[in-house]
Every structure is written in structure tokens, then in C-alpha cells.
């Protein structure tokens, strides 16, 4: 516990933590212009239920039509859809509406957009050809040989999963429209990447500080000759892990807390993450399992924790060997970027191209696509295999480093 205090009492650690938290809050608040519009989905779920069925859609259509006739009467205009109305509206006409009326029109327009997307789900899902996408990927990356074979095989599996997904109707659930708001990318890519990079910086600094502390304070001769002796490194290890865990939990808590206060997710927690509305780029998100948004969030947080702890272990091992926090910090940062680039040095015809992608950097930075099919790290087993492989590697390295340390010259 005294080891933990070395970190907690260092002002730079707390300072950086506060700075990062404030920055994250700023990041979230500054991109929350559309938070009111998002609430319409909550309203839809309340009124029509989570699942989109033909009857509930018909109901929604009726309600939209009803509101539209009202609008037509009050505005004295003739139009087919709100979209059309807005498109032809000039700025002066716009100003003629009262604030309340204007809000109503906006709301109706958003509802219409959701309705149109929902209506065309079947149509747009029928157009998705997973096999062809796979072949496109092979061409795009210029793969050949066993690499191409492997990727096509993965896409074949994904195709089966896709059929199952459509059969279960996982895609027919309300969620924030991806193409309009990019909420999945914002939360799991932008916000999560910030959390990850910030907590990794803090974790590596803290671990390096604790581990190399005695050598940098020139107290090693005294400390390691006490009764506890070099076993102290075990305590240092536990302290590093504890600090890493707390750092991540607090940073996740503060950032995600702000996020969900700003954006109202209360109604969409149990919507499937593979919902057709969660379709941002030219391919919807297709998860390998039927997981909800809430579960996905927990899983993502789990990956962050696992990744952070593993990086902490690796830092501990390196710092034990080099006995210098500066080199340990620089070395781990270098390692993190180097393994990120590793796959691009591999032959594009060999399976190594994929195997080298099973690393912590790719796992952590690609977190918005975890548990999803498609892409180079879209294998069904990618997440747990990466974490368990690196747990083994980190445990091995830590063990060797500790054994070596018990015999090394500390003078």
C-alpha cells in the first residue's frame, strides 16, 4: 500500500488525470448539438415498442400522416412529405413559423426519416452481399495465397451469421440513426480511444514510477537488503495493478458518466448492437452474437480493463529489467506503435498477415469494431484469443523478469 502512495501523492499523476477528465468532458459536451433530436428514438420506443414490425410501422405511418394533415391545415400548404416541405422552404418562410411550430416540423421530419429507413430495412438488407464484400476486401488489400483464402473463409462464416441475424430480426430494432448521428463511432471510437490512450499514458507512467522508484531515489541498496528484500517487487507489481485498475475505472466512470448524462441512452440499452439503424458507413455493424448496446458497452469496458492491465504488466517487466522509468516509458510507447504497424510488414499472401494483427494495440484502438464481423480483425474469436494470448505472454515475461531480478546486481 505504501507503494501506491508513491503514485497517488505525486502531483503530476493527479494533475494529468484531472486534465484528461476535463478534456474528455469538454469533448463530449462540445459535440452534443444533436442530443435533443436523439430523444425522438426514446419516444418511438415508448410508443411503438422496441421491435419494428409491420403493424407498429403502419401505426407510426398513420400517426405521421395525422400530424402531417394537421400541419398542412395550419400552414395552408400542400406537400407529400416534410422533407419536401423543408427543401422548398425559403428562409423568410421559415421565420414566419413560431418557435413551437418550427420544432414540431423538425421533429416530424426526423420521425419521417426514421420511418423511411425502417420501411426500407428489408430492401437494403437484401442488397448486402457479404461474400462480394469479402472479395472486395481481398482486392483492396491485394491479398493472395493463404491470406486471401483465410479472409474469404471468415466472410463465409459471417455470411451464415448474417442470415441468422436477419432471421432473428436483430436488425429490426430502434436505435439512433447511424448515418445521421454516428453515435456508435462517437462513443466507441472517439470517446473510447481518448479514454484508452489517456489511461494507458497514466498507467505506464504510474507503473514505471513504482517499479523503478528505488533505483531512481538511490534507495535500492537499503530497501532490497531488508527482510522483505527483493520480494518487494511482488508488492510493487500488485500496487501497479491496483493503480492501473483504479485509474481506468475512474476515467471510464467520469467520461462515460458525462456521456450518458448528456446523451439519453435510457431506452436503447437493450436494442441489439446489430440494429439496422447502427449503419454508419457502407456496411452495417454485424456482431457475431446477439448482444445489446448495454452488453456491448460492458464488453468494451472489459477490453479496456484487460488491455490496460496487460500493458501495466509489460511495463512492470520492462522497468524491472532496465531500472529506469524514462526508458521504460519510451520503450513501451515504442512497442505499442510498433506492434500496431507489425501486420503491414507481413507478406500479403501469408496467414501471418492476420496472426500479427492479434495484438493489444490493434485490439484497443479498433475497439468500436470488436465482436463485429468484417475487416482484417473481424474473426469471431479475435477478442478473447488476443486477450488470452497476451495474458500468457505478459505472465511469462513478468515471471522471467522477476526471476532475473532476484539474481541481478543492483549496485
Amino acid at each position: 500500500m505504501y507503494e501506491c502512495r508513491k503514485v497517488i501523492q505525486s502531483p503530476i499523476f493527479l494533475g494529468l488525470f484531472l486534465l484528461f477528465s476535463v478534456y474528455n468532458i469538454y469533448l463530449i459536451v462540445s459535440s452534443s448539438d444533436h442530443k435533443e433530436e436523439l430523444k425522438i428514438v426514446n419516444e418511438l420506443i415508448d410508443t411503438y415498442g422496441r421491435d419494428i414490425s409491420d403493424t407498429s410501422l403502419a401505426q407510426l405511418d398513420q400517426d405521421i400522416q395525422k400530424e402531417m394533415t394537421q400541419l398542412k391545415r395550419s400552414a395552408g400548404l400542400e406537400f407529400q412529405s416534410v422533407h419536401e416541405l423543408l427543401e422548398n422552404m425559403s428562409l423568410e418562410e421559415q421565420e414566419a413559423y413560431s418557435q413551437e411550430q418550427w420544432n414540431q416540423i423538425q421533429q416530424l421530419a426526423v420521425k419521417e426519416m426514421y420511418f423511411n429507413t425502417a420501411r426500407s430495412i428489408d430492401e437494403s438488407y437484401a442488397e448486402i452481399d457479404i461474400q462480394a464484400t469479402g472479395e472486395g476486401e481481398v482486392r483492396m488489400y491485394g491479398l493472395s495465397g493463404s491470406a486471401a483464402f483465410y479472409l474469404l473463409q471468415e466472410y463465409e462464416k459471417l455470411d451464415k451469421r448474417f442470415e441468422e441475424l436477419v432471421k432473428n430480426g436483430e436488425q429490426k430494432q430502434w436505435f439512433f440513426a447511424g448515418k445521421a448521428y454516428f453515435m456508435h463511432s462517437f462513443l466507441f471510437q472517439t470517446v473510447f480511444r481518448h479514454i484508452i490512450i489517456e489511461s494507458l499514458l497514466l498507467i505506464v507512467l504510474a507503473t514505471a514510477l513504482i517499479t523503478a522508484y528505488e533505483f531512481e531515489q538511490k534507495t535500492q541498496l537499503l530497501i532490497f537488503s531488508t527482510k522483505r528484500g527483493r520480494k518487494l517487487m511482488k508488492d510493487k507489481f500488485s500496487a501497479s495493478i491496483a493503480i492501473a485498475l483504479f485509474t481506468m475505472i475512474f476515467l471510464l466512470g467520469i467520461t462515460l458518466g458525462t456521456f450518458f448524462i448528456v446523451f439519453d441512452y435510457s431506452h436503447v440499452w437493450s436494442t441489439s448492437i446489430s440494429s439496422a439503424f447502427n449503419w454508419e458507413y457502407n456496411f452495417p455493424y454485424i456482431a457475431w452474437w446477439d448482444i445489446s448496446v448495454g452488453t456491448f458497452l460492458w464488453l468494451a469496458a472489459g477490453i479496456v480493463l484487460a488491455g490496460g492491465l496487460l500493458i501495466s504488466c509489460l511495463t512492470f517487466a520492462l522497468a524491472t529489467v532496465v531500472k529506469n522509468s524514462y526508458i521504460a516509458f519510451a520503450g513501451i510507447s515504442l512497442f505499442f506503435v510498433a506492434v500496431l504497424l507489425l501486420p503491414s510488414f507481413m507478406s500479403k499472401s501469408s496467414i501471418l498477415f492476420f496472426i500479427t494483427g492479434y495484438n493489444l494495440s490493434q485490439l484497443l484502438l479498433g475497439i468500436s469494431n470488436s465482436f463485429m464481423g468484417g475487416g482484417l480483425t473481424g474473426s469471431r474469436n479475435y477478442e478473447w484469443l488476443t486477450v488470452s494470448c497476451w495474458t500468457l505472454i505478459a505472465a511469462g515475461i513478468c515471471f522471467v523478469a522477476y526471476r532475473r531480478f532476484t539474481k541481478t546486481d543492483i549496485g
Partner: protein
Amino acid sequence: MRMIWNEMKKILTWRMLTFLLLVNAVLYFLLISFDIEYFPNGRPALDGYRLGIEMIEEYGVQMDEEEMLDFRRQFESRKEEANEYLQAHPEFAEAGIDDYEELVTSVWDNEERQNLHSQIMHEQQIDLFWELQERSRLIDFHDTKEMIGFEPNTLQQTRFDELLNEGKYQAYPEVVIQNFKEFIVNVGITILFSVVLLISPFILKDRTRRLLDLQYTSKIGRSLYKTKLIAGILSAGLVITVLLAFYFSLYAQNGTSPYFGLGVNAFIANLTWYDPTFLQYIWLCILAIYVIGLIFTMLAMSVSSVVPNFVTLIGIQIPLIFVMLLMGFNILLSHIISVQSPQWLVPGLYGLLGIVSVGLLIYLMRRENFRDISE
């Protein structure tokens, strides 16, 4: 002099140099290699690049109305060639495409025509059609040369009109300058990391090793601190020079020298407060990298002189580097003379950063003379 050299040897150790090599290798592949290996990046970038060289050879670095007319005439004659190509291939006539105009305008409503279009553009990649597309883009751009392309404020509008009156409107394809801007920012980032990693630890290291007790009681005494600072600046300068030389020798592969004489305002979408040639612009960016590098060297040395340990040393510099990566390089390097920021902002920022970092060092130098080193 000998002391400076000895201090430099302490900074530029083999271990440190190997480490820098690794850092640069990783950052090169992460950031820089793309702008060199993939230049020009696909089409129509390649055609823009070729066409730009052709234009400079034929019309020089400024295009007047007569030359523009000639450019249009060439477009027409190339179009004739394209028409001949289309007529020589019966499948186009069958799809109802008789000439080039129809190929580009009427293609999107019909799948058969779309396929034919993508066949000549993407599968066969016929140069002629790509070149035509680029030429027509340039002509369109010329037709709208009186429009500024973004919401300008008064100063920006004045600058724009001024250039237009001098006949310096934006006429040449922008691939080269875009590529250079991306390249130079990535080089800047790489050099910033290299310099900060190199310089940060060395003053602190002497202090934690209790070397000062020995040094400051010797005959040279406390003025040694100044020697260290000079050694730090020289080492950083040396590393910056070597790295710049290396990265620019790679940049030479891009073959952008035909563009060197072109004023930077002649490139499309590159409105700037001053009008240097492309080569002068490159030199300006090199100078900027030296200044940024040395400012951060001085900041690193200041931090290194006051912090108690390595972790604080890194921790304090993380926010500085973050700010630099998030905004600094964008304003200070990639838009160094662009009208995007007010004319006074960039020189002002350089001045401010310079004064702060030099001022800190002078303060620390004075402090060093009286400081209690036994703590």
C-alpha cells in the same frame, strides 16, 4: 569549447542514438512513408500531377487569358480524340453514347452506361479520359475564379481581390502542395518526438546522480549549466539537421522539382498572405521546423532543470505535446502563411513561444547561480 563537446557526447550516446533510430523507424512507417510511397495517390491525383508539369512547361508560372484560351483549345482537341475513341468502339454507340459529353453527363441513370464508364476509367484506366476529367475540372475552376470558395472575412476578401488583380489566380492542380503539407507536418511530428526524447533527460540525469556536487565545486563551477544548455541546443540542432536531410532526400523521390518556381497562390485552394514560390515555401517550412524543434528543446531543458524525477519530466510534457499535435502543427506548420488564421497569429505565436522558452531558460540560468544544490 571542449566542455561543450564533452557535454554533447553525454547527450548523443550510442544508446540514445540507437533509440532515436528506432523511434524514427517506427514514426516513419506510421506517418511519413505514405506521403512518399503513394505519391501521387491514385487517380485523378496522378493526372493532376502530370497536367501541372505540362502547364508549367507550356505556360510558365502564371497563366494569362490567352494561355487559358489555348488550354481550352487543347481540351477541345483532346475531346475530339476521346470522341474518336468512343466511335471506334461500337459498344458505346449501342449504349447510346456518341461523344465524350454524353459519356460524362448521361451515365448515371443507366447501369449499362455505368459499366462502360467504369470500364474505361477504372479497369482499363485510359489516360486520355482521366486527363480530360482533370482538364475540365481546371477549366471549371477557372470559370469560377472570382469566387473565393469559402465564407471570407474582409481581410481575406481583400487579399483575394489583390491577388486576382495581379492576375495571380488559382489555376494549377493542388496535388503537389497538398502532399507537401501532409509530408512536412508528419516530418515535424517525427522531429519533435525525436528532439524531446533526446534532450529531456540529460540535465535531470546529472542532478539525480549528484554529479552537480562535483561539477559546481570545480574551477569552472556553475557556469557549466550554461555550457550544458548550449550543448543541448547544438545537439538538437544537429539531430534536426540530420533528420531533415534524410527525410528530404526521401522526398526528392516525389519528383516535385518542376513545381519549384510556381507561386504557392497559383495552386488551387491555397490562398496565402504572402506569395513565395514553392521552393521558398519549402525553405520556410524547414525554418519553421528548426524553430519548433529548438523551442521544444529549450522547454524540455527547462522542465528537466526543475522536476524531481523522470515520471514528472514526461508527465509535464505530455500536455504540451498533445496541444502541439491537436492544434499546434496545424496552425504553425501546415497553415503557416495561409489565410485561415489572421495574418498576425502565426508570427505572434512563434514570437510568444520563443520568448517564453528563452525567458524560462534565462531565469533558470540566473537561478542556477544561487541555488542550493545540496537538496
